[in-house]
């Protein structure tokens, strides 16, 4: 192998460049033979010409631009973006600018976000006026999940303000200027809907193509189709005759969620797929629309009926939630030993042949099972937590 080039000679040729920047002291100190004074001598060889006294052309042009054309960008207009591209597309289409926050990326179109006022109004209606999330969602046209998230985040913001923690307000302001926002309606105006609130994701069971011959004499609607998709037998004629419209089922199921039938046995048991009228987030809107069509001239009566319906639904949901919570609390004992750093939550469970199965491999029993493959590494298994325990 030929002898390697000494590292010192290399760094000597680099020295003039190194000394020109102030941060090179560490690289210099690694070379003991050169003092800082001698390195300055070396650097002088390369700066023989005097620095120009007057401004360069480019610099002069920069200041010219800043004082004339560019002066509009000096102060930022609140509520607008301050992009250079505004000069190019002056008089262009202003409407599309708001939904395209990045002018050089025409393919990115932003969805609107909630304005500060609307966001605070959501919090006000849910927490201070004690309206239910469902009602506020319908009033303001915001998805129920978003309502819940807004309430949590405003709560968090208030807590941070109370604790005197710094908030990223300039950032929030800048984002609100960049992307379109849904404003809160003025008094007397109609609130613009922020997003569609009654959307329903496609159920995986409906993905299959099924050839299902039906006699012409038989009625076959969404309710029946759901039963076919989930492999349940057709309803009895008397049972089917009771349902005049699929949205009737929504009312029934709201009152008694256990009225949904089951198909399959053991671990494969699943609930019968219900029609979309039942599964949408706001089934009561369908009922309201049907009332309106049935009684076109009695707007007040329809509105009263609807508010009563909502009240009943809220009461039922609240009662169910409380019952569930009470049952959970009854089953759990919390022990806090003095000498321990932890609490122990002792939950009562029941092991019977119903939960463990006859062969002890049942999936309903608490605890890990014996003789059953542990499917934690199978493809598609969701391992991150999907909900927060109370």
């Amino acid at each position, binding site marked *: 192998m030929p002898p390697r080039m000494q590292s010192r000679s290399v760094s000597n040729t680099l020295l003039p460049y190194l000394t020109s920047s102030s941060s090179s002291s560490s690289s210099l100190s690694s070379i003991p033979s050169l003092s800082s004074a001698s390195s300055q001598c070396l650097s002088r060889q390369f700066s023989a010409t005097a620095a120009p006294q007057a401004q360069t052309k480019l610099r002069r042009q920069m200041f010219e631009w800043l004082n004339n054309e560019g002066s509009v960008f000096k102060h930022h207009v609140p509520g607008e973006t301050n992009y250079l591209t505004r000069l190019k597309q002056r008089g262009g289409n202003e409407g599309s600018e708001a939904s395209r926050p990045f002018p050089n990326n025409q393919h990115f179109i932003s969805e609107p976000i909630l304005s500060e006022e609307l966001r605070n109004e959501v919090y006000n209606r849910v927490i201070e006026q004690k309206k239910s999330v469902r009602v506020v969602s319908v009033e303001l046209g915001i998805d129920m999940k978003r309502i819940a998230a807004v309430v949590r985040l405003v709560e968090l913001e208030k807590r941070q303000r109370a604790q005197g923690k710094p908030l990223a307000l300039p950032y929030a302001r800048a984002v609100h200027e960049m992307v379109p926002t849904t404003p809160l309606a003025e008094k007397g105006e109609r609130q613009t809907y922020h997003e569609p609130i009654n959307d329903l994701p496609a159920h995986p069971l409906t993905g299959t193509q099924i050839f299902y011959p039906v006699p012409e004499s038989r009625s076959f609607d969404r309710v029946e189709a759901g039963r076919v998709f989930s492999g349940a037998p057709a309803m009895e004629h008397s049972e089917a005759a009771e349902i005049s419209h699929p949205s009737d089922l929504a009312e029934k199921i709201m009152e008694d969620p256990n009225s949904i039938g089951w198909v399959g046995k053991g671990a494969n048991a699943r609930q019968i797929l219900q029609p979309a009228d039942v599964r949408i987030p706001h089934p009561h809107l369908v009922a309201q629309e049907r009332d309106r069509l049935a009684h076109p001239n009695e707007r007040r009566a329809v509105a009263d009926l609807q508010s009563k319906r909502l009240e009943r639904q809220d009461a039922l949901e609240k009662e169910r939630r409380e019952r569930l919570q009470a049952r959970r609390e009854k089953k759990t004992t919390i*022990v*806090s030993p003095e000498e321990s750093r932890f*609490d*122990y*939550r*002792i*939950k*009562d469970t029941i092991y019977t042949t119903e939960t463990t199965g006859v062969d002890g491999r049942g999936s309903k029993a*608490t605890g890990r099972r014996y003789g059953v493959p542990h499917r934690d590494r199978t493809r598609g298994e969701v391992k991150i937590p999907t909900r927060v*325990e109370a």
Partner: protein
Amino acid sequence: MVVRIRLARFGNKHNPFFNIVVAQARSARGAKPLEVIGTYNPIPKRPTNLYGENTDARPYKEIALDRSRAKYWLGVGAQPSDPVWKLMGMAGLVAPKPTTFDKA
């Protein structure tokens, strides 16, 4: 042969999880037990919603136990192992395990 109530380790490396089982004392830890009567998760969980009066809530460990089966097995002479004794003592099924200080 002695019947014991003891812990059987499940879970992965660094992620222990125990079934509380009733088994013959001489059988292996991973062997099929006579009966599973509960679970014990030794990894402490942090309570959520930590604000307001909840701020200094202690982390907790989860135990699930079938009390009636536990009572039955204790009644017919099953002997809890030390860790299970500690858990059952907290559940109020047996007298708490005496500490070294109490014995002296």
